[in-house]
């Protein structure tokens, strides 16, 4: 029922591939209200993650998340690098050294990720950032806490997608889009979108 090291590796790999495939969409979203590099940044970072995962030799799910975190931190740059890096690092810490991850632990990992992102970036819900995808994702995950990993992640992904979509009318208050003031309204936040893409890929990978 739970996810082994292999399952987690496969899921992170699937998430990496999905984000890489969404490069152009994320570039375009960021071009409009930011500086156009979000898709390129994540493309660079998750390409490096895939190479690291190829190396193998991970003895726990946490080890997989940790190498993902450090690789993102050392290759992504920009705002997203430290934020996603922190998210994965905190998730790894939340898992401890369990060898199988269950739904409850996924919820704990997502909670830790959100806390980490907020601690670093100081964004509140409604600021038009990835926090607007992650916050409803955590809430939805919590409400399915007794379900399996895939169900938890599926609920999180659904909520993240809705949360991302809900950033469209918002006026940005954090990150580069905030410089646009009112003109940032009417556009999807790239980081919220990439969070939704990541969660959807994790959910689909663990369902199989």
């Amino acid at each position, binding site marked *: 029922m739970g996810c082994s090291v292999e399952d987690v590796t496969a899921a992170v790999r699937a998430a990496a591939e999905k984000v890489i495939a969404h490069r152009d969409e994320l570039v375009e979203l960021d071009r409009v209200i930011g500086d156009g*590099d979000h898709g*390129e940044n994540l493309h660079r970072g998750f390409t490096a993650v895939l190479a690291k995962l190829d190396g193998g030799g991970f003895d726990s799910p946490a080890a997989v998340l940790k190498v993902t975190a450090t690789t993102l*931190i*050392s290759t992504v*740059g*920009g705002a997203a690098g430290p934020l996603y890096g922190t998210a994965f690092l905190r998730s790894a810490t939340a898992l401890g050294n369990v060898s199988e991850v269950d739904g409850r632990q996924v919820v704990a990992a997502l909670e830790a990720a959100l806390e980490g992102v907020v601690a670093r970036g100081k964004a509140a819900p409604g600021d038009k950032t990835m926090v607007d995808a992650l916050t409803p994702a955590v809430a939805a995950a919590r409400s399915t806490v007794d379900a399996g990993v895939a169900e938890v992640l599926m609920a999180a992904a659904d909520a993240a997608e809705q949360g991302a979509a809900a950033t469209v009318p918002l006026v940005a208050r954090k*990150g580069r889009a*905030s410089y646009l003031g009112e003109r940032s309204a009417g556009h999807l936040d790239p980081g919220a979108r990439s969070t939704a893409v990541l969660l959807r890929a994790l959910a689909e990978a663990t369902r199989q």
Partner: protein
Amino acid sequence: MKKIINDPAAVVAEALRGMAAAHPDLLTIRTDPAAILRKDAPVTGRVAVVSGGGSGHEPLHGGFVGPGMLHAACPGPVFTSPTPDQVQAAIEAVHGGAGVLLIVKNYTGDVLNFETAAEFAAAEGIDVRMVLVDDDVAVKDSLYTAGRRGVGGTVLVEKIVGAAAERGADLDTCERLAQRVVAGTRSLGMALTACTVPHVGEPSFTLADDEMEIGIGIHGEPGRERLPVEPADGIVRRLVDAITEDLAFKRVLLFTNSMGGTPQLELYLAHGIAERLLAERGITVERRLVGPYVTSLEMQGMSLTLCGLDDELIDLWDAPVHTAALRWGC
């Protein structure tokens, strides 16, 4: 998109190769992670001044590495801040035993990545301080934004603090000096055209033939206000007004900066107008810098920076500097 490049993903690496070839006596350029270092680094017993940020703003920051200014610059990908590992490697390469001052433009990405690097370096026992440059008056309300951005004023902070470090000022002194310069510096920029990031392939925004953008950032971010184009007199007046309304100045350094694609003829023309407007306001221009120093790729446009001066700052500004982009006194 038309650019003199090969693979868009390799632009920065290839440009660094060319920069290394162009300045063999002045710079050591490392790749993986990328760093532009003073040839004679580390300078023992001196505070090391380190900066960096996304590429595409050249000569900022690499063009300001050398005696009397920066000890190292960390170039990220185009418009993307460098990573913590990269900054940490640069810190370790130039640390001369007297601590390291990081001069960071205030953008979320830069702040987070340099902050992380500073933590790493501190863990290695290096005394690292970080000063944020946030001189852009285009960003009005810092409560509802990521705060003022760091733009043109950065080069002035780097020059002045670099001179102090070169003379042997300690880390506390350098840090306070940097904060003082930041506190007394304000900038505002405008664009006639947008720029195109190589990996994006299309302009970061579009302006009609009769439009200009006031308050643009240096990352191709559109500004806060789109207006019909005006004669130079009107454009420069807007910039001077906004800056002098934000902070009162008496003696200043006036920095007239090209965003990259503006001809020098237009830049001097604008500079002359700014001098006249400042004179009308009773502000004394004691030093000037005119040129493309903090750019946004090929963007046409300009920014003005005013930096309040006193005798100490003038003396540090005048001190010898030897870098690829700024050189005098040696």
